[in-house]
């Protein structure tokens, strides 16, 4: 499903990326420790829990929820022939296994892919290692997903 990229698509990507980066800094989700302080449910009884992440994700979902409904009223996006809905619909083993592995990695570091890239702006020590292995892991994951499953090729 290759579509030609128009200049307007690049402008949209630029604006979206800028907003995304701004949001990660303003919300302080760029700080791995702040993310971990949300995930640390063991700290709830002692009052050390930081509920920030919940506010961030609920606010983001609320805006996107309206945008998706708005998109549903249109046949096409503003600068593209069609909406790129994800092809997979089934709950399968890769979804479950992948979510478990990602959950472990996220819990170990407090860094998910967005903040990993956002942190490049501040370049903390050892970030290059995280990004290098994010790249290696991603390549490995994509290789696994490209293997034919039950005689049927799975589209990327």
């Amino acid at each position, binding site marked *: 499903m290759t579509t030609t*990229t128009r200049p307007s698509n690049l402008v*949209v*990507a630029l*604006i979206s*990326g800028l*907003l*995304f*980066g*701004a*949001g*990660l*800094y*303003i*919300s302080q989700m*760029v*700080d*791995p420790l*702040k993310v*971990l*302080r949300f995930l640390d*449910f063991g700290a709830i009884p002692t009052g050390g829990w*930081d509920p920030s*992440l919940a506010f961030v994700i609920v606010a983001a979902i609320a*805006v*996107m929820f309206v*945008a998706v409904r*708005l*998109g549903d009223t249109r046949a096409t*996006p503003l*600068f*593209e022939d069609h*909406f790129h809905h994800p092809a997979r*619909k089934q*709950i399968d083993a*890769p*979804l479950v*296994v*992948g*979510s478990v592995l*990602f*959950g*472990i*990695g996220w*819990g*170990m*570091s*407090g860094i998910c*892919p*967005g903040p990993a890239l*956002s942190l490049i*702006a501040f370049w903390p020590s*050892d970030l290059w290692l*995280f990004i*290098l*292995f994010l790249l290696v*892991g*991603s390549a490995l994951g*994509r290789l*696994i*997903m490209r293997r034919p499953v039950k005689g049927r090729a799975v589209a990327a």
Partner: protein
Amino acid sequence: MNSFNPLPATLGGLLIGLASAVLWLGNGRIAGISGIFGHLLPPGRDWTWRVLFVLALVGGTALTALLVPGLGVGGPGGAPAVLVSAPQGSGVPGWLWISLAGLLTGVGTQLANGCTSGHGVCGIARLSMRSFVSVGIFFAVAILTVTLTGVVS
């Protein structure tokens, strides 16, 4: 101890939602960072907008840190950004802990076809059943991981 302030958290969340809305309504694309990042790997198709998005994301972070300094971590007036080290007493070197976390995040997000943004924000907003399952699992596992390893000391 980090102080919790719902205002910047909510405002930042609204901006992330707006970023996702712009990419969906403008280009019909999911603002999923692991997907955008993963598609930069060969055989990368339509990579120009993805490279531009990633560069803008880094630039947007740096620019906002200059415009709104001292909010927390990063930029002038902010605390230096630091990655966590391995749990105390585990004997695991910090570089190994961070590398392993990166590797698991990479493999996991490509198998699950999404992360906190693609499944967590866009997928939930689209009421995708796959995203509800994925988000439920990775949040639960991440909470368990933090609680069991005691990585926050």
